[in-house]
């Protein structure tokens, strides 16, 4: 009972990361599709405008996750952000470039100018989910956290074959999720090309996730700790990916998109279930693990934050959903495009 709010905040942060990777996941996927699906500048423009009104709101899920970590688990926030300093610098540089690229690209009618920003969007959209995959895998694998909760890690501590597999899996998953989003938001050639590509990528997603799960068995302790919950979750992941593939073939794009959404949600949930009640695993000594108890804020702060979050989240969800409803129509080159 005493620590119930610690658990609540662990769940809330899980939800925020699910929200981030679900929403920004398809934004990243659309960004990747700019080189793999779009063939003309006009098509690239259509793709960017499919996420135009929503990408910024989607990114706020990440900022909120960061803020929630800071408020609820300051040690988690401090350990993670200082410990993975360089990957975070890269991630931030990529996010900065990507964010301004949306706004800047159409401000000049010059093709070179546009290409520069479009490449920025593409590279950032490709590397961002990759880095998140690496970070999540590193969470599970453990990092050299010392008794003072500080990570003294070199690149070789977090760039390992295992974390690279995690990076590839998340990147492919976001790509597929984005392709399905495109099939929902465009028409004609662009739509059918996205669908055709999705048929291949869905296989790659299935394989990479299975490889990741197998690798997790060898590189982490999550099966010994939470095997009974994780096995059914992974089974559901496989089912969702298979269903996604089937729905694509039948051109049920909405359902295929729902399935990748479920896959992303379950994948993120599996990471946090595998961690629980830890938030960061120490590869030096399990006594140095950060948990939802030793990394947390005090009960008063958690109580205040819970009241605030419970009051505000319904509104946030409400108007974000409304915004998707407003922009529910497909878009094409014939109309006025803002970005």
């Amino acid at each position, binding site marked *: 009972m005493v620590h119930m709010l610690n658990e609540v905040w662990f769940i809330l942060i899980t939800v925020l990361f699910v929200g981030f990777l679900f929403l920004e996941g398809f934004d990243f996927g659309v960004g990747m599709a700019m080189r793999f699906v779009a063939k003309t500048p006009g098509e690239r423009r259509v793709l960017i405008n499919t996420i135009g*009104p929503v990408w*910024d*709101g989607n*990114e*706020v899920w990440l*900022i*909120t996750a*960061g803020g*929630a*970590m*800071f*408020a609820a*688990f*300051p*040690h988690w*926030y*401090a350990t993670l*952000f*200082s410990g993975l*300093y*360089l990957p*975070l*610098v890269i991630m*931030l*540089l990529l996010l*900065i*470039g990507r964010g*301004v690229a949306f*706004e800047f690209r159409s*401000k*000049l009618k010059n093709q070179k100018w546009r290409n520069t920003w479009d490449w920025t969007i593409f590279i950032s959209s490709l590397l961002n989910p990759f880095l998140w995959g690496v970070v999540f895998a590193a969470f599970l694998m453990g990092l050299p956290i010392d008794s*003072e*909760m*500080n990570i003294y890690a070199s690149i070789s501590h977090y760039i390992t074959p295992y974390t690279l597999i995690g990076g590839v899996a998340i990147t492919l998953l976001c790509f597929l999720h984005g392709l399905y989003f495109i099939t*929902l938001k465009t*028409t004609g050639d662009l739509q059918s090309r996205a669908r055709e590509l999705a048929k291949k990528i869905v296989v790659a997603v299935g394989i990479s996730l299975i490889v990741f799960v197998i690798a997790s068995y060898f590189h982490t302790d999550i099966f010994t700790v939470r095997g009974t919950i994780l096995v059914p979750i992974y089974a559901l992941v496989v089912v969702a990916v298979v269903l996604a593939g089937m729905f694509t073939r*039948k*051109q*049920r794009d*909405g359902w295929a998109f729902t399935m990748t959404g479920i896959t992303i949600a379950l994948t993120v949930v599996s990471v946090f279930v595998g961690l629980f009640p830890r938030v960061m695993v120490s590869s030096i000594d399990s006594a140095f693990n950060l948990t939802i108890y030793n990394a947390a*804020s005090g009960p*008063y702060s958690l109580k205040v*934050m819970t009241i*605030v*979050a419970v009051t*505000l*989240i319904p509104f946030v969800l409400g*108007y*974000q959903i409304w*915004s998707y409803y*407003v922009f*529910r*129509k*497909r*878009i*094409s080159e*014939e*109309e*006025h495009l*803002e970005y």
Partner: protein
Amino acid sequence: MDVVILSRLQFASTTIFHFIFVPLSIGLAFIIAIMETLYVVKGKEQYRKMAKFWGHFFLINFAVGVVTGILQEFQFGMNWSNYSRFVGDVFGAPLAVEALLAFFMESTFIGLWIFGWNRLSKKVHLLCIWLVSIGTIISAFWILVANSFMQYPVGFEINGGRAEMNDFFELITSGQVWVEFPHTVFGSFATGAFLITGISAWKLLKKQDTAFFKKSFHIALIIAIISGLGVAFTGHAQSQFLVKTQPMKMAAAEGLWEDSGDPAAWTLFANIDTDKKENSFEVNIPYILSYLSYSKFSGSVEGMKSIQAKYEELYGEGNYIPPVKTTFWSFRIMVFTGGIMILLGLYGAILAKRKKLEQSSKYLKIMIAAISLPFIGSTAGWIMTEIGRQPWVVFGFMQTQDAVSPNVTAGQVLFSLIAFSTIYLILAIVTAYLFIRVAKKGPVEKQKDVKLTTDPFGEEGYGSYVK
């Protein structure tokens, strides 16, 4: 260079750069919301054009503000992990509330505003820009709640070596918040207003779209005057609060080594010698420091030397005097830019009243240059606030040198400092270039007819599975 200095440089450059865009976003959103309100109420097409035209600047600016804001939030954990551990229990909460309450609101409704001109009814569209504006102001409030805790910590207790919140209400009703928040918001309104008057002045000089830019100038001028005066009054309230809560910062801002006489004189200029701890030359205006500090023409103000002695007794040995010259001059730059802004605003009002605005090419030229004044003022203000608090990061409880991440090396910070600074420089150049382009182009509109196609989340997307 050592990691503390590099981390401070990075924090300073990020925050200063971020705060070029923040006040402009707050100011422009508010003024655009007013313009669109005029459009909806009066139904005149010109106001819609205004909202759209100034909206271009707002959106370019907003994008840069958002992306640098992510870094702003993450850098506490990245470079200041000991600080984050020490204050997270108190300091994290306002940041999380800011994200939940303000960031979601701004980002969602700005998307609706940009893309919603033809999809939403006039009133709903107007509501969107007001929600963006309110969002930017709420955002300012919460980040200043966090900053105020560093200046004047309240609503917490020290428990197990860290600060833990024990009174949320006290945290958000802290006196510091309520002098800092209105001061910042008025300053931001002035920033937006001076951008609009400046660009309008430029266009008026070139005699392009005269009616449009005259009207824009008038609207912005009113806001410039009101917020300029607002900045001054709230600034005065802040200095009175400062004398009580951070006398050392006030003394440094005055270059006041010894206790002042009664009444206290205000130093207009001084040649400060920090080694000898004295001023070799100063120009004083009698009574004014008493007035700044206590709103009356009597009362003395403590000097740095006696405060230093007090602090040594209280906090142990050490140097509690901040960089005096920086604090002193940044304070003066802030006050002078603020004063000039008010004078320019009032003079503009006289010209406008006499209908001589377009003929006064000298004034208009000055107003173009005056775009920079609010930026200089707010940068100087933040430098004074943050440098003047040194050596503390949380006043009285944690020193800056103890706040850095112990596991981040100087090399890493040097790398990120160079990388971020380069990006900032590029963004600054691109933003300035785009601003000039948008201004040159003027309020022309090209709009293709919007054709809306089918609904993917309806039957088509989900097919027979929905039926």
